[in-house]
């Protein structure tokens, strides 16, 4: 009390309090829907109607996860309230992992190779080709997707993994552009020393430039992983057969399969949660890196 008399009294920071309240509210709004997904996924189909307004199921169950991952027999799944003809999420999970994995590896490697050539090697037409790549960055997806669909269809690529990864696996203009800018900023001395030691261009690229570029390569790989894991439009066009569905496509189809007229919400939310889990894991393991990569994607 005596200190009050000595020190000038600081006004109560209403502004800060208000800002904290706003921030907390936004965090709550950001997390609440995800929380409800988990709650619904852990609710049995019977309890869904009686506990719709509750925040947590009275008797949490894993049956919906077992159902969507195909761990139950058709009879068991039907008894738990599913349609029994549920989409095979385990298969879709496998397809999503293959689809994303192949593209991330291929796109990062081939784009880095091209970016190195654009940054360091001299050849006729280099700058003209690079400019073409830059222009291509502006073309919206829908313009390319229709002719690409026709190309892939004519090559017999519908419902196949090669058909699904083809447009993304060799390059994206953004990946080439992004890595070229970084390679240009690298000091040339190490590369020149290696050249004088008789190293060939590929050895220099593979053993010197790539190891020095781990940060940007990781950034690019993270951005590509997130983008491809979530990609919907292209796999939706190419995967017409259940065996080729990726997770987002399987979810969309699963939603439409409503034999009783009402969506199978508990199963759907379990599938939704399964689709989101790898993203949670990525964020938990690589949190700082993911946040920084995303922040970087805005500073072109």
């Amino acid at each position, binding site marked *: 009390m005596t200190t009050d008399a000595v020190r000038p009294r600081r006004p109560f920071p209403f502004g800060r309090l208000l800002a904290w309240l706003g921030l907390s509210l936004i965090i709550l709004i950001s997390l609440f829907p995800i929380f409800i997904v988990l709650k619904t996924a852990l609710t049995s189909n019977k309890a869904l109607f009686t506990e719709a307004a509750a925040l947590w199921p009275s008797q949490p169950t894993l049956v919906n996860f077992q159902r969507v991952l195909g761990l139950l027999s058709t009879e068991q799944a039907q008894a738990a309230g599913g349609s029994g003809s549920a989409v095979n999420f385990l298969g879709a999970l496998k397809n999503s992992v293959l689809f994303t994995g192949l593209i991330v590896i291929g796109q990062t490697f081939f784009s880095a190779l091209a970016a190195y050539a654009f940054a360091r090697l001299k050849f006729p037409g280099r700058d003209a080709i690079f400019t073409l790549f830059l222009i291509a960055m502006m073309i919206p997806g829908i313009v390319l997707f229709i002719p690409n669909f026709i190309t892939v269809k004519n090559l017999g690529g519908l419902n196949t993994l090669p058909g699904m990864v083809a447009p993304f696996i060799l390059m994206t203009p953004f990946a080439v552009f992004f890595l070229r800018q970084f390679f240009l900023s690298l000091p040339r001395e190490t590369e020149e020393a290696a050249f004088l030691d008789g190293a060939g261009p590929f050895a220099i690229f593979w053993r010197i430039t790539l190891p020095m570029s781990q940060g940007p390569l990781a950034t690019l790989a993270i951005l590509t992983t997130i983008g491809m894991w979530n990609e919907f439009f292209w796999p939706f*066009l190419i995967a017409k057969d259940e065996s080729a569905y990726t997770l987002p496509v399987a*979810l*969309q189809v699963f939603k439409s399969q409503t034999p009783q007229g009402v969506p199978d919400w508990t199963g759907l939310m379990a599938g939704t949660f399964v689709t989101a889990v790898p993203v949670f894991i990525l964020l938990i393991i690589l949190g700082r890196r993911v946040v920084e990569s995303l922040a970087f994607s805005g500073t072109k």
Partner: protein
Amino acid sequence: MTTQTESTPLRATAPPRRVPTQALVGYLFILPAIVGFLVFYLYPALRGVQISFTDWNLLSAPKSVGLANYDEVLHDPKFWSALGITVKYVLWNIPLQTVLALALAVAMDRLVKSMFIKGLLILPYLLSSVVVAMVFLWLLDPFLGIVNQWLAATPLGKQAFFSSAEQAIPTIAFVNIWKHMGFNALLFYAGLQAIPRTVYEAAAIDGASEMTTFRRITLPLLRPVMVFVLVTSLIGSFQIFDTVAVTTQGGPADATRVLVYYIYQNAFSFFRMGYATAMSMVLFVILVVFTLLQMRLLRANESDLE
């Protein structure tokens, strides 16, 4: 002279050390990317232009129709309605999303630098738009969704959300604001970090209030980031498709048939490849205009910090 001419074939017979020229290596390095570019970017772009001048259902041979598709675009009330709905969506989506993201970025800048909080705020952006759409379809379900369960106890009562012609577009806009707000805030936050602290200190010494500092210093210096975020959001927002495909499929009563969804329907439901491609070209032109606008705006204030 003769000895020299004789020595040349001699050298040639000796196995030449294969020193690949730099040009050849360069072409080899870009070969995979060039193949990808030619087949999946350049060819489809040119082929798209070509298809847009034909009448083609994928089954029979394409029939050349000249500018008929473009003429139809101009006179198709459904195209104009789709464009109108898209603009309506963009207007619900962009202003609110940008203001919220900016407020969030300032709050982060002032209150917490915690990576953990940033991670939480970025989480919605990392989810697939299909997942996000599915989540809100369930939250806002008229019968069992928790939002309507709670609303039923208030004077507002239950709302139709996705199944109401009036509410569907604002609802879809809200869903995407939820998804993108944290990400845009992160971009603004990075922009705020780039503003030198000395500028703020100078303002504080001059006795500028918080609001004045924000209006006269933060906003002008944030303009390059602002332009970037606005234009990329605008371009993305104009191509809204996933959320519509999952939640409303263009309904109820075509109230959410946005441009890309209408293009998709023409191509893959009505098999009118020519007409669909012509409309996608028109969309392309609209987006190019946005991009050019961005370049001008960016160039116009390059000198803000100098």
